[in-house]
């Protein structure tokens, strides 16, 4: 029962991943692509937590922590670069 619900949740997360990836590939402006990048990192953190639940190893959660910290840095740097874009 629990495993079935978790597989359904993983399928929903995979659908969200595909939609965000499409937005990253299509996005008309660079800011749209940065938004897609941000959403893809958040979805990947959820995927890491699901992998940790399936494998049953607590050490995988540290990867999610580092991932959240550093991808946040990347989004901030990209946004600060695009701010001075067209002037």
């Amino acid at each position: 029962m629990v495993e079935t619900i978790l597989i359904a949740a993983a399928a929903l997360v995979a659908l969200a991943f595909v939609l965000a990836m499409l937005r990253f590939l299509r996005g008309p402006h660079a800011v749209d692509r940065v938004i897609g990048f941000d959403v893809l990192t958040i979805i990947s953190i959820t995927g890491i937590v699901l992998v940790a639940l399936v494998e049953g190893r607590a050490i995988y959660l540290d990867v999610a922590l580092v991932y959240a910290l550093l991808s946040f840095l990347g989004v901030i740097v990209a946004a600060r670069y695009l701010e001075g874009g067209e002037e």
Partner: protein
Amino acid sequence: MTLLAPLAAAGFGLAMIGAALMALRARSTAVAVLAAGLVSLFASVLFLILAAPDVAMTEAAIGSGLTTFLFFYVLGRIRREGYDDD
């Protein structure tokens, strides 16, 4: 459960190849740098599926965070000195 890990690896591999294609074909350099950071990010999840959490941690910190930061730093300095390829 035995089919779940290859499926996830195939999905992330396809996403990595798509992001790498985007990094090669994008017109603007900033978008190409973002796509390369996305390749590193997905590679980190792929390392996690391949049971290497230490490599995944290092790849997420260095490949995605620091490399993107370095590229945008150099891009910002180059733009400040007047170069208008974007």
